[in-house]
Structure formats: structure tokens, C-alpha cells
């Protein structure tokens, strides 16, 4: 038992749990985006997809796991960041990046993460717990989430905030994706360059995907 306790409080243990939860979140974000693409098919398709997803009793298990991953990821992020700040009580008066290491994405992880946390709360309030409209598809009464979404994106300020948050998500995951492989010890001459390319591609894809859909919704009004 002492061994497991040490692992979860150790630097590497915390980082590996962080990477594991990040991995789960990366998967979630991808499936969420795939689901959102139903908006392009039309109101009925999107509403029916959302209905099928939320009426499955397993949704509660999935939501609990998801909430656990978010909370674990955020708590560890705060713990690690505080420790890192404590590790250098007096900062440098001059410090320049070598240009061969730290990137904009890696250097802003805690900040993009913070924006994502705020976004997450607002996002749940606006949609999951947002205005409830109802519609009937194939004789089944269900939530008209499509209407809630389109209505929300009628405001260009909301579109701008959403796009900004999604750029942060893209930046966060473009570093996080490849970072989690390194944290789990997967660094390989042949595969690491491919993982790094895939990491950037993932970040760009989710940022453009979510933002594009928000802009599409704006023009549906």
C-alpha cells in the first residue's frame, strides 16, 4: 500500500495520471466533435443523435467517468503548477527561450487549461442546462437541442468567445497529445516524430472543427 501511496503523490505518478485523464479527454473531445457534425445533416438528425445518446442508461456511467477525468485532470494541474511555482521562489531577471524547446503551446498550458475550465462551466450552463425546447422526430418527443444551439450562436459575441476557447483547446491539445506519450515513457526514434505531427494535426482539426460549426450555426440565423 505504501508503494501505491507514493506513486500517486510522486511527481511522475501525478504526471502520469494527468496524462491518462488527458488521454481520456482527448478521446471525448474527438467523439463530441464527431457528434456535432450531425448539425450539418439537419435538425432532426442532430436531435435524434442527442436523444439516443442521453436516453441510454449507460450515459450516467459515462458522465461520471467523464466528470472524474475532468476533476482529476484539473486538481492535478493545479497541484503540479503550484509545486512548479514553489520550485523557483525567485525568478530570473532575464530569461530567454532557447528557441529549441518551449513553444507557445507548451508555455501556455496552465492558461489555456484555465480558459477551458471556464468554458466548460459556461458550456454546460448554456446547452446541457440551457433553454429546453421540444420537438417530435419519428413520433418521439425529445429535446430540440438544435434550436438551443442555433439560438445561442445568433450572438456574434458568443461565437467569438466560442472560437477563442476552441483555439485554446487546439493549442492545449497540440502540446498535450504528444506530451502524454512522453510522460508514459513512449519516446521512440521512429514513432515520436509521427506522434508529434499527429499531435499538431489533432489540435488544428479540433480547433477548426468546433469553430467552423459555431460559425455555420451563426449563419443559420
Amino acid at each position, binding site marked *: 500500500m505504501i508503494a501505491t501511496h507514493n506513486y500517486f503523490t510522486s*511527481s511522475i505518478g501525478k504526471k502520469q495520471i494527468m496524462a491518462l485523464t488527458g488521454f481520456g479527454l482527448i478521446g471525448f473531445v474527438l467523439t463530441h466533435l464527431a457528434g456535432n457534425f450531425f448539425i450539418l445533416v439537419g435538425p432532426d438528425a442532430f436531435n435524434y443523435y442527442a436523444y439516443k445518446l442521453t436516453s441510454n442508461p449507460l450515459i450516467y456511467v459515462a458522465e461520471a467517468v467523464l466528470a472524474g477525468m475532468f476533476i482529476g485532470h484539473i486538481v492535478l494541474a493545479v497541484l503540479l503548477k503550484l509545486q512548479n511555482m514553489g520550485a523557483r521562489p525567485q525568478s530570473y531577471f532575464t530569461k530567454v527561450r532557447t528557441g529549441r*524547446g518551449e513553444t507557445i503551446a507548451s508555455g501556455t498550458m496552465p492558461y489555456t487549461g484555465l480558459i477551458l475550465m471556464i468554458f466548460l462551466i459556461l458550456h454546460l450552463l448554456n446547452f446541457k442546462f440551457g433553454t429546453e425546447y421540444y420537438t417530435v422526430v419519428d413520433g418521439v418527443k425529445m429535446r430540440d437541442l438544435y434550436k438551443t444551439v442555433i439560438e445561442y450562436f445568433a450572438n456574434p459575441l458568443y461565437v467569438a468567445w466560442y472560437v477563442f476557447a476552441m483555439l485554446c483547446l487546439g493549442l492545449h491539445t497540440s502540446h498535450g497529445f504528444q*506530451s502524454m506519450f512522453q510522460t508514459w515513457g513512449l519516446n521512440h526514434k521512429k514513432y515520436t516524430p509521427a506522434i508529434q505531427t499527429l499531435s499538431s494535426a489533432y489540435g488544428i482539426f479540433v480547433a477548426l472543427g468546433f469553430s467552423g460549426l459555431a460559425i455555420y450555426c451563426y449563419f443559420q440565423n
Partner: protein
Amino acid sequence: MSKEITVHLKIWRQKNRQDSGRFEEYTLNGVSQDQSFLEMLDQLNVKLVRDGKEPVAFDSDCREGICGSCSCMINGQAHGPEKETTTCQLHMRSFNDNDTIVIEPWRARAFPVIKDLVVDRSSFDKVIASGGFVSVNTGNAPDASAVLVSKENADKAMDAAACIGCGACVASCPNASAMLFVSAKISHLALLPQGQVEAQKRANSMVKTMDEMGFGNCTNHAECEASCPKGIDLSNIARMNREYFKAKIASEE
């Protein structure tokens, strides 16, 4: 052709551990560009002593890039602007006439400043000591071919063993993490058959000591790799992460 230049130095002066420290500025004329950086500091100190002032304290020993003691932050970069170079290997030809050069000590909780540019890096020694011993056969020296080591692993172990423990990785890391150093020390034994017997114990206790010393946590920026005078790379940190995880799930303690 050697050229003489004038440099404006902004150097961190701190009397002792308790002192809060401050920058002092000096202008040094007639600095040969053929000089090494430390020779330039020697030249400054000769001048300071002649003027009846306290010379700048800095560490150095081998002055050929192998001991790792000449550690300082030069214009915001560990060991200065050149790649894979220690401060003693840095030359004044890397600077121009009338340049301002800012020199600071390493800054990390685990590396308290003792005086001026000299920091206490004994936390590194404690990490190494906690790694313990390696079991080897006593008696006559075994045949070189008795224990087989693949060329690839021998090379990687040698690359990791090139670490001189200068602390540039900690100094350059935005999180003051020592993971490149500790991973190099874990790696050079983990890659060799001779290091297998205590491999798990070693990973376990070196990481534990690293955490206790108050270093930060790696966030995979790779500033350490970019600043390392010996070119130790990030694959060592990945190896340490693997070794530590393996040690944890296998450990019975």
C-alpha cells in the same frame, strides 16, 4: 585576427545565503575575443581586486567542459548562447563590442545561492547517493566479452553517462525540474546488464529523493535538452518514467 572589445557587465552580487542580492554593473575594456568567458571574469576580478573591491565569486574547476561546476545564466540562457557548450567553453568571440552581458546564478529552490554566482548543488549529490550501489563480481577482472552488451545500448548508456551534473537542465527548465539529470543517472545504468540487479530500487529511491529536494515537475517543454552542454536528450526522461512505473507496480513495499 584577435580583436579587443569592450563589454558592459551586469552581474548578480549576493554576500551570502541570507542576503537578498542585487545587480552591479561593470564596464570592462580590452577584452580579447580569443579569451574564454571565465578568463574575461578573471580579468574583471583582477581589476576589482586592484581597485580594492570584492571580486565576483563564481565556480570553476576543469575549465574544459567536464566537471560541470562553471554554472551560470548568461543573458538569460544556461551557459550562454552557444549550443552544447559549458560556460568555460564559451568564448568572447560569441559577443560583440559594447554588448551588455547579464550574468545571474542558477535559480531554483533546490539550488540556494551561496555567494554571487555560486549555488549549492548538493541536492544533486543526494539524488546520486540515494541511487545506491551496483552489484559486480569481485575477484579478477572479467573478460571484456564475458558480459554481452549491444552496441546500441552501450552507445545510449554512454550518452547518458556524459551528464556532468552542472544543473543547466534545472536552471533552464521553466518548472525548475531536475528530471533530465535524474533520468540520465537512471538511464546509464538501466541500459546495461550490470545495472539490472538494483534497477527498480534505484529508480524508486532516486525519484523519491528528487521529489524531496523540492525540484519542479517536468511539463515536456524540452528547454533542458536544448540547454544541456552534453546534449542529453528527452528519451532519457521517457526511460525514467517507464522505469519508475515498472518499479512501482512490481514493488512489494
